[in-house]
């Protein structure tokens, strides 16, 4: 890419910024990126610190003893971890596929001007964005009426419909898909579904990728829903497993006097910091690996709506 052009015999930078300003921006953004990355690095360092080191020097970038004991412990721990890992993957994969499909179908209908109930359905999805049912009624409906109770559906269904993503996707359609394309497809004898899946979807990949990534992130990071509806260890996703440990540690820290002498026993048997950090690494790694694949779509997805011929 060309960064400067020659104009009146001088090199002029395209960005139009002076060297000083550019350096300042780089510095600020660089510091910001460091601030984002450092906690992750810190987590990784702690996960590789020996417990005795944590005990004596506390959290430190330079622990006095490195060790892989927490990872060994995680692997020995075995069943529950892999089970939860599988659950998280399964929920994320299934949830993302279904929710993206729903998102495409719903927002495509909202995008079509010739759809009569367009206003009504826009309003319908919009209103759920503004008002929630409250925790207890939602819980009752999900658990008692819909039967979302100790099964995978309990963690997939509540996140399936996202009005915000409908709006994103609809805007994406209206800025990239010309009406004429749909008309000409219709003239050529294409049915509604063929038009959508063979003509519209292929040219909307960046938008779909964005929605898919946001959905995948939401599913991967979700633990609250699992906390509400999952009671059996069989279905616990990874995040909730970590959250449970963290909750346990917090709770005992604050209430040890109320529970009495036994609290000390329980504290002794709860996983230590380095183990929890190792779990964080396990959680972050897969999604961090998935990010680069989506990234090129997202960048184009975010900018594509702007000025175009």
């Amino acid at each position, binding site marked *: 890419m060309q960064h400067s052009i020659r104009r009146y015999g001088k090199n002029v930078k395209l960005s139009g910024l002076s060297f000083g300003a550019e350096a300042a921006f780089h510095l600020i953004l660089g510091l910001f990126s460091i601030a984002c990355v450092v906690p992750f690095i810190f987590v990784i360092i702690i996960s590789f610190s020996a417990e005795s080191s944590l005990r004596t020097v506390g959290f430190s970038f330079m622990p006095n003893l490195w060790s892989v004991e927490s990872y060994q412990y995680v692997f020995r721990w075995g069943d*529950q971890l892999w089970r939860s890992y599988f659950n998280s993957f399964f929920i994320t994969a299934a949830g993302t596929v279904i929710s993206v499909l729903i998102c495409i179908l719903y927002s495509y209908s909202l995008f079509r001007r010739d759809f009569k109930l367009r206003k009504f359905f826009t309003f319908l999805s919009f209103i759920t964005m503004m008002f929630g049912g409250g925790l207890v009624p939602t819980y009752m409906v999900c658990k*008692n009426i819909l039967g979302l109770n100790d099964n995978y559906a309990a963690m997939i269904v509540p996140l399936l419909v996202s009005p915000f993503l409908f709006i994103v996707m609809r805007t994406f359609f209206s800025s990239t898909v010309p009406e004429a394309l749909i008309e000409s497809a219709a003239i050529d004898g294409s049915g509604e579904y063929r038009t959508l899946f063979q003509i519209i979807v292929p040219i909307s990949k960046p938008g779909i990728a964005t929605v898919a990534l946001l959905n995948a992130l939401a599913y991967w990071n979700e633990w609250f829903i699992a906390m509400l509806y999952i009671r059996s260890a069989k279905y616990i996703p990874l995040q909730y497993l970590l959250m449970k440990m963290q909750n346990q540690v917090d709770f005992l820290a604050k209430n040890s006097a109320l529970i*009495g002498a036994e609290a000390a026993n329980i504290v002794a048997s709860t996983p230590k910091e380095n183990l929890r950090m190792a779990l964080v690494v396990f959680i972050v790694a897969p999604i961090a690996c998935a990010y680069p694949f989506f990234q090129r779509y997202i960048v184009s997805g975010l900018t594509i709506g702007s000025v175009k011929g």
Partner: protein
Amino acid sequence: MKRGLALTLALALLLVSGLGAATFAVAEDDFSQEVTIKWMLEGSNVTDDTAVIEAVNAYLKEKINAKLQVIWGTWGDFDQNVVNSINGGDDIDIYFTCSWTSNEYSAYANKGAYVRLDDPENNLLEQYAPGLFDVLPAVLADAAAVEGADGVGVYGIPGYKEVAQEYTWDINTPLLEELGYTVDDIGSYYDLGPILQKAKELKGADFYPLNIEGGVLVRIALNADVVDSNLVLVYPFDPEHPSQSGTEIKSLLELPEFAEFAKKTREYYLAGYINPVMATADAASSARTDAQLTGQYLIGTQVYSPGYDAQASQERGFQVTFKPTHKPIISTTSARGAMMAISTSSKNPERALAFLNLLNTDPTLFTLIAYGVEGVHYNLTDDGKVEFTDKRADYQPWRNGLGNITQLPLTVDDDPQIWEKFAEFNDAEGVPILGFALNQEPIQNEMAALANISKEYLDGLCVGVVDPDVVLPEAIEKLKANGIDKVVAEANAQVQAFLDAKGE
């Protein structure tokens, strides 16, 4: 229009038939139909309960024709889940409840969440659990009586664990002796200065002789019991004669003794006797455990339970002595420390109570649930003691949160005299306001604001990281501005009403 009418009629019919079914269900339970009892517990660490539940079901089938399904709540999650479950009307039969979880016993009994067990018109206790209260100390039965939705009565079955409560100093004995003192020299908090100084001189700057939990330390120094979990209000008791304590609830930060305590703590802190990390709740707990396990402390704070000294000594690898700072007391908090209540949404309250009866009176069942299956989770040694296997890691319920723990066989780590000590410890004096629990509903808003103020200042003051001369007046001023006087007045009015009702 017609369709609307039909719909309404259909709905009404449904409703009527539903009500009909409900009235029929009240009929007595003759155990002829097999039912599943759902049981929600606190604080467990269970990942695989298949073997246990299989054995329990086989046993229960024979006894009460029921199956058991346990929802193993964990610390921290239970509070959130149980409230949703109760408010959402889940079909859970038995809930763990106590004085310190979110489904606090007296408040939820009052709301109508729990079934009254000794209702004169339908006395379930007499019918389905006749001998249950005979195996429990009388003081537990007294504390279980509460003003609920169906009048004053029993709405839950108390668990029989440590009924009394005692705060103690936790002393690193070898180090104390190295310094030339004996356990007898440890007395009042205010006189510890010279001993701590000597320890500090001997062990150096990185050594913090006082390994304390601020919230416990203040209770030790002031001889005060908790009223609300944020220590806005406390109940000062008489350390020598607990049953002769006063009947007044007070605002902790406003007590003149508290000012004195904060000043002393500040002095100890500035002298380097207290680790500054103790002021941050999240880090303090593990720092405290670390100091205990490595012996890097001289005197700590602890809540005592029988046999804990032997266990702590073994765990830490040096002799730990616990020196109580007062006589054991029985308060509402300790007597309602763990209970089981039957939900009003339960379809089979009779069978649930029959199960609770069995749980508290049948050692076979209780041992099975608390310790697991013999040959899988534990083996019995030649002298009949329990030795856990590796499988125990998958199945660790919170023993004290289950029921009558005196039924359990000894484990190899237990003190052989544990049950004698236990009985002796529990034979303590009750405070005059035993059974009283603060109803926070009328002062909800004030309590929420005051709890935040308490959270903001208390940890710092109780550990000494802030200067009480500056901070304490500021905290008190904030308390006043947020209605502490109203709260104290309301609390004491409630105490008075409680005492009047009790006196009748």
